[in-house]
């Protein structure tokens, strides 16, 4: 046992320990403070006989002369077992509910290993979330990481819970114009809370409980009043559990990480305490690489049945998409679902801002066999028409409605109907992709037929609902 009482400096969450022997980078550390409290930590840097240790649970109550530092010779690990399903853990993977300790099947390092790019299987199974704004225009696929960019006061939690509740994978359609039925499968939700309030966490727990989804959920909670540095470990705990369930127990795992903004702030706190050269807005220069080691743990692996799909939630400070956190996230994830304050104010739920939202994998996840042959064209057309409608509305603000051309007026009417009927839906409403597409085609009737330039003619012929009566 290598135990030391040779701490020299304590700065914020960091301790500098002297005269250590055989300490390695990344090693797990147990700290015992003079008042008896214990904290876990890990080695951030080791320079000859001096180790820099970050304390996950803070340094309150410690002092240099009496703090015991024990180096454990292994890295931070999570004990995994299938019994984790239905349980609630703290941010470092210790039971937080009243249940017993987990009897581990094995212990896994929470840092994982990168998936070999040649071993990845491309995510191309459409996930039906039952939300039109997502399914119709920015579909989620299995193995994707699709964050929700939100802001304070917006209903991102409701949306994430709705996605977790309704997600289903469809069977292959028998023909190009047929949509398959949802299939039942081994499905699990891993939920990691970083710095969110008790209320928010409670909302999710309640949601899972009410729908009995809790039985197939694993929760890791680091709440707002829990130690901030612990948050650095929490998403990795969750993803380690997810990898175990996906690649060893063949489950399809949906991982919800909320709120990534607090995670990044914890990282910044440690970086500042280390006096590192800051990048933008004081965040460390390695923020991109660090976030990548979290987000890139989503995916599918050839020859394994399970998959990991990530829906991280991050609240954009001041709704600013160019802030380093959403910006770097967007560069790693495969698109983003952006929530919009104006839509929310107008009472549209879910307030998905369709234009800046994007699912990069949608081309692979939709189309004949996956959803339906016309899906890609229709979604393109809905996008284009909505964009044009919004433009025309802006114009109308300056010039007045009367100045709009006939076709612009049609697009304005379309944009309104699109927000009101297509984007808007109930928090408990589970729309099948068939219904979503039908709704899209219904809205197409508001546009002159000649404007449907992005849809192949054959599809227009086949799917555009007939006019019930002649033009008035």
């Amino acid at each position, binding site marked *: 046992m290598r135990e030391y009482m040779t701490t020299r400096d304590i700065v914020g969450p960091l301790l500098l320990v002297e005269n250590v022997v*055989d*300490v*390695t*980078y*990344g*090693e797990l550390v147990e700290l015992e403070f003079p008042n008896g409290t214990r904290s876990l930590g890990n080695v951030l*840097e*080791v320079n*000859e*006989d001096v180790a820099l240790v970050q304390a996950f649970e803070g340094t309150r109550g410690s002092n240099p002369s009496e703090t015991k530092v024990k180096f454990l010779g292994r*890295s931070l690990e999570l004990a995994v077992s299938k019994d984790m399903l239905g349980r609630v853990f703290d941010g470092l993977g210790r039971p937080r509910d009243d249940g017993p300790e987990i009897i581990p099947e094995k212990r896994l390092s929470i840092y*994982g*290993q*990168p*998936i*070999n*790019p*040649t*071993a*990845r299987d*491309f*995510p191309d199974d459409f996930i039906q979330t039952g939300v039109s704004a997502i399914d119709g225009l920015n579909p989620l696929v299995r*193995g994707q990481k699709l964050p929700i960019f939100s802001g304070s006061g917006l209903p991102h939690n409701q949306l994430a819970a709705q996605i977790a509740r309704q997600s289903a994978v469809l069977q292959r359609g028998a023909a190009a114009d047929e949509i398959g039925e949802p299939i039942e499968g081994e499905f699990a939700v891993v939920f990691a809370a970083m710095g969110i309030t008790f209320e928010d966490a409670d909302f999710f727990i309640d949601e899972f409980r009410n729908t009995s989804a809790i039985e197939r959920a694993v929760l890791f909670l680091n709440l707002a009043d829990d130690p901030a540095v612990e948050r650095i470990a929490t998403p990795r705990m969750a993803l380690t559990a997810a990898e175990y369930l996906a*690649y060893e127990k063949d489950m399809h795992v949906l991982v919800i990480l909320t709120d990534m903004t607090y995670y990044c702030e914890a990282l910044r706190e440690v970086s500042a305490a280390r006096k*590192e*050269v*800051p*990048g*933008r807005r004081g965040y460390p*220069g*390695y923020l*991109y*690489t660090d976030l*990548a*080691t979290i987000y*890139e*743990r*989503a*995916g599918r692996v050839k020859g*394994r049945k399970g998959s990991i799909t990530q829906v991280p939630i991050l609240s954009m400070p001041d709704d600013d*998409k*160019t802030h*380093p956190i959403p*910006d*770097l996230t*967007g*560069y*790693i994830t*495969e698109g983003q679902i952006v929530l919009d304050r104006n839509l929310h104010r107008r009472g549209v739920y879910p307030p998905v801002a369709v234009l800046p939202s994007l699912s*990069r994998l949608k081309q692979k996840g939709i189309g004949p066999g996956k959803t339906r042959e016309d899906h*890609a064209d229709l979604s393109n057309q809905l*996008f*284009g028409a909505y*964009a044009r409608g919004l433009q025309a509305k802006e*114009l109308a603000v*300056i*010039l007045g409605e009367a*100045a709009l*051309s006939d076709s612009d007026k049609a697009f304005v009417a379309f944009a309104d109907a699109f927000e009101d009927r297509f984007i808007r839906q109930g928090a408990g409403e589970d729309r099948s992709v068939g219904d979503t597409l039908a709704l899209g085609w219904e809205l197409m009737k508001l546009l002159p037929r000649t404007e449907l*330039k992005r849809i192949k003619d054959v599809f227009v012929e086949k799917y555009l609902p007939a006019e019930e009566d002649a033009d008035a």
Partner: protein
Amino acid sequence: MEQGKIVKVAGPLVVAEGLVSSRMYDLVRVGAEGLMGEIIEMRGDRASIQVYEETEGLGPGQPVEATGAPLSVELGPGMLEAVYDGVQRPLDVLEQMAGAFLSRGVTAPGLDRDKRWEFKPTLKAGDRVESGDIIGTVQENAVIEHRIMVPPGVSGVIEDLSAGSYTVTEPVGSLKTAAGDSVDLIMMQVWPVRVPRPYRKKISANEPLTTGTRVIDTFFPLTKGGVACIPGPFGAGKTVTQHQIAKWSNAEVVIFIGCGERGNEMTDVLMEFPELMDPYSGEPLVKRTVLVAHTSNMPVAAREASVYTGMTMAEYFRDMGYAVVLQADSTSRWAEAMREISGRLEEMPGDEGFPAYLGTKLAAFYERAGRVHTLATETEREGSVSVVGSVSPPGGDLSEPVVQNTLRVVKVFWALQDKLAYERHFPAIDWLTSYSLYLDKVTPYWNANVGPEFRERRDRCMGILQRESELAEIVRLVGLEALSAEEQVLMETAKSIREDFLQQNAFRDDDQFTSLSQQDKLLETILLFHEKAIEAHSKGAALKDIFAAPVRERITRAKYLDEDKLAEFDEIASDIETQLVGDGFDDDEVAVYAGGER
């Protein structure tokens, strides 16, 4: 070999002492597992090493072994179709060795040592050879003939050279140098990645690298040997554009470096390239491709090396006489890796924490591109490396250091705009802010190979788009009706250029590739409509009716026409003629024909 020991570990940076005879940029093996690392700083007997693998578990006292050689790549038959990480470890082989996840310390040589290749000599004993001379060939696959060259720095008289089946390390023959030494000739060359491979001389890059993407080929062309930069706020379609170039450009060899990008995107490339047919050879695209896949979650120091690994491979194929296109996606991630290492070295930072030498490194990298006369006795062998580097500016802010330093050296700038992407205008290359400094250089080629009027048509369209942006301001304020009829026609033509020419669907079979001649025809048609619309209006037809002429439908669809149906453009032209200004009708009839009111 010399052995030292670790004194400090901080993330990917390890400091070791006792490596006195090692040199800067030498490769070392770190720890008991022999992790690859490279010396990047030396102070006294202490060497700072960037380690190409995860450093968890390393600590002071553990051994570091010198190799006495710089980080190098192996060049020879077997590179094509391979997938490498940033330091040329074959990922497919690692998968067989260690499974789906990348474990530390597992490694394999870049070229398969056991595979045998059919070598056919092109020279014979007694021939005098210089560095770069081709001594024989290996048909590596159905597409690429691998030309075996005398390595740089070697020359003499061939003693012996024989056809047969060899591995990359077996001698295929030998030569006698001027000093009288006998040197074995083997197929594999080893070359340090940070040193540009030599060539005889650089020549002007004046032949276009066609891509089939209309906005690029016509408006902002790249050349063989040229350098281009694609910035893009995320979601603007940067990656799709790069894939399009990899798939459709007329380069013979493609080196694709996924540098610090998404794993799933790399998988897309890995799974798609073997299935995609190369439009030029009819064989799978992957047969002319080398992939360097170093995703964002793989060790950051090796990400820094990945662009050099790719570039050295590109230069090697260039030396054989091929036109190579190297795509680096994304150079921002490369720069960030540099920044991360620089921060760990506690260097004084420049702009935004990037090291002060960022600009120098970027410029030196891009300068390795170019069209050259290669080393060889026959001086006319020509090869080229074109580079398309993408940058990912944070927050889409083009004033940040990586973009600014890149723009100083590149000649083509394809400005992707997220605003266009939101409108689903793809490729979202902004025609007003993009530029190509190769325009004048490729014009003689266009005149000779596309048509004498192509350049002029291109310039006229550019002028129309430019004018549109000026008029758009007025329209926004006072409405379209405030414009003169001629200006209204211009606005309509500009819209047609945007929708019927610039917009291109990369996922639609009949739209993803357009030949230069078809691009010329499209411009000709759009401009013809423009002229005839003005003419028709001057003869009294109402604009509304002109714009509603049925032929416009055909113009819209003209971009989807098959390459062998270009004759249809003549029909469209005659439709424009008859529908707008009539064919032998007098003025009255024109207006009637156009359905107009007077």
